[in-house]
């Protein structure tokens, strides 16, 4: 085993880990005062990790990727593309955070530190080609997330969100571990490369249970129905910047990890896991669309929206083809932009004292008080609803196209029907903002960081985003091909 090469291939994680350790010391000695500095350094660390990842991606020497640490970790185009999404989402979430805590809420240097450690874990998750590496990455990111969810300690709802997330997350980890132990028992290995040939032909009942348990644990992490029940509570209770983070980076990581384990490790048993994924996809799409209708809290509504979107992403995975995986990645990229944009827009809704506004009734007539925020939020909502010419339409289009090409017309048809139901509540928000009597609650000012993130994401989901279609499609195709090249 060549250690220098292994360390080189795990460059983004090594760099982020070292940065995380330095940030720990800064947090200990700098205390409360170092919070801003710590945030800036953490953003710098994530930018550095993105540059290393991008360098791998454009380096022709790594066209085929490479294995590190004897097959525990694999650097390839799929992992690199997912990591870029994760790091960019992390950067976007970090730069809008400090302002949120200005209003009497304690901001501490541990916050960016936890985001950095979560990013290390998520990088491990998407690159793991062994159940052990996968589990360690998953736990590193989950444990950081539990703390982040309850970061505003004085707020009861935040504490409840953290506790709920922790208890249910631990349960899901247990289910996942149980599944892994069965998979290991019936295949004799924890490595994806060895599990794949071991699971050939008819799958025994025990091994099948292993696969199902692993999928159940993963479905919890991506908050797919029927393991979604924690999502609305955690999204509502956690501080809004944390919710922004939860709905973007960990989602990408968990979905990419699911794609790799299903397509690589369980690749010979596509019929077994595809049934589960198809069910989860359809159930998520429908429950996400129906559950959001009665909500009066914007964050809760966006939580259901994210469940709904996970369903569409899983439709891409359910095809089990390279085209489907590529469509999944394109949708993920667009989803991250839409989710980041909508939550940042929600973060910018402040009353005259600078307090967060979360109720739907309070944003009535927003178009007159804050036309720009209303415009961007409306663009996000219409894009989430998949209405052309906004970019969200393209994500849905490629996913349904992949489903139709894989002879899953019924799946695509139900997905389209559910997205029409979903359009109802997205349009309701637009209607409240533009046509209702102004409530004049949202009057607070915002800083440059929020406007920057909002502008970038809004331009991405606007029709201008279509300029990126070709390069993004090519990149997603390459990433998806890397998943299938292992075999």
């Amino acid at each position, binding site marked *: *085993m060549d*250690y220098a090469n292994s360390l080189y291939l795990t460059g983004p994680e090594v760099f982020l880990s070292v940065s995380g*350790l330095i940030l*720990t*010391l800064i*947090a*200990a*000695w700098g205390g409360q005062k170092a919070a801003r500095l710590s945030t800036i350094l953490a953003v710098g660390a994530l930018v550095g990790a993105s540059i290393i990842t991008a360098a791998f991606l454009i380096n022709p020497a790594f066209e085929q990727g490479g294995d590190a640490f004897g097959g525990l970790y694999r650097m390839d185009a799929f992992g690199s593309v997912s990591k870029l999404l994760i790091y960019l989402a992390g950067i976007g979430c970090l730069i809008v955070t400090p302002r949120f805590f200005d209003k009497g809420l304690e901001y501490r240097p541990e916050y960016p530190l936890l985001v950095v450690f979560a990013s290390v874990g998520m990088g491990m998750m998407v690159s793991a080609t062994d159940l052990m590496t996968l589990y360690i990455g998953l736990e590193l990111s989950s444990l950081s997330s539990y703390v982040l969810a309850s970061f505003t300690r004085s707020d009861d709802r935040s504490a409840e969100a953290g506790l709920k997330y922790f208890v249910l997350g631990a349960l899901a980890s247990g289910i996942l571990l149980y599944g892994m132990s069965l998979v290991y028992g019936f295949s004799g290995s924890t490595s994806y490369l060895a599990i794949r040939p071991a699971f050939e032909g008819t799958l025994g009942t025990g091994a099948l249970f292993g696969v199902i348990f692993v999928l159940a644990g993963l479905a919890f992490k991506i908050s797919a129905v029927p393991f979604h029940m924690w999502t609305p509570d955690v999204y509502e209770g956690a501080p809004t910047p944390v919710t922004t983070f939860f709905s973007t980076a960990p989602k990408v990581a968990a979905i990419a990890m699911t794609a790799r384990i299903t397509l690589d490790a369980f690749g010979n048993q596509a019929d077994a896991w595809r049934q589960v994924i198809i069910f989860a996809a359809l159930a998520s799409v429908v429950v996400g669309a129906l559950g959001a209708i009665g909500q009066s809290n914007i964050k809760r509504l966006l939580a259901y929206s994210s469940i709904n979107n996970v369903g569409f992403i899983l439709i891409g995975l359910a095809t089990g083809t390279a085209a489907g995986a590529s469509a999944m990645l394109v949708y993920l990229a667009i989803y991250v932009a839409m989710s980041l944009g909508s939550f940042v827009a929600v973060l910018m809704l402040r009353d005259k004292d600078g307090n967060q506004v979360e109720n739907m009734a309070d944003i009535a007539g927003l178009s007159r008080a804050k036309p720009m925020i209303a415009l961007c939020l409306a663009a996000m909502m219409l894009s989430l609803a998949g209405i052309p010419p906004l970019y969200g339409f393209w994500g849905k289009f490629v996913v349904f196209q992949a489903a139709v090409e894989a002879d899953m017309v019924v799946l695509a048809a139900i997905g389209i029907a559910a997205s029409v139901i979903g359009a109802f509540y997205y349009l309701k928000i637009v209607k409240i903002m533009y046509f209702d009597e102004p409530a004049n609650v949202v009057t607070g000012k915002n800083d440059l960081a929020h406007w920057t993130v909002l502008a970038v994401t809004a331009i991405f989901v606007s029709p201008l985003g279509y300029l990126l279609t070709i390069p993004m499609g090519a990149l997603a195709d390459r990433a998806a091909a890397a998943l299938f090249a292992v075999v």
Partner: protein
Amino acid sequence: MVDLSQYLPILIFLAIALAMSAAFVFLPMGVSRLTGTHNPTANKLTEYECGFPAFEDSRSQFDVRFYLVAILFIIFDLEAAFLFPWAVSLDLTGWAGWVTMMIFLFELIIGFAYAWKTGALEWE
């Protein structure tokens, strides 16, 4: 049939351990009875468990600092649990294993420094 004879050393070890621990418990009891210092009072007869009364409503409140100490204890106790298998297999893992463990210990020291500096180890 599994050949159990190779496990004789552990059997002897367990037998000696059992004998010794029995001696530690019963020897003082016997000695105190024989020498006349046997004087059971109410406090001596109560169960002892980490300083808490053992039979009481389990929903009683206790200082959250116990919890913090317990978590720190677990972290550094687990470190020792990792060190044992590492130590006996060092001839197999070689320098790579040694360096890896040193990196692990270094990271733990940074965590320890953080806990110390932020006052997690101070009771007041």
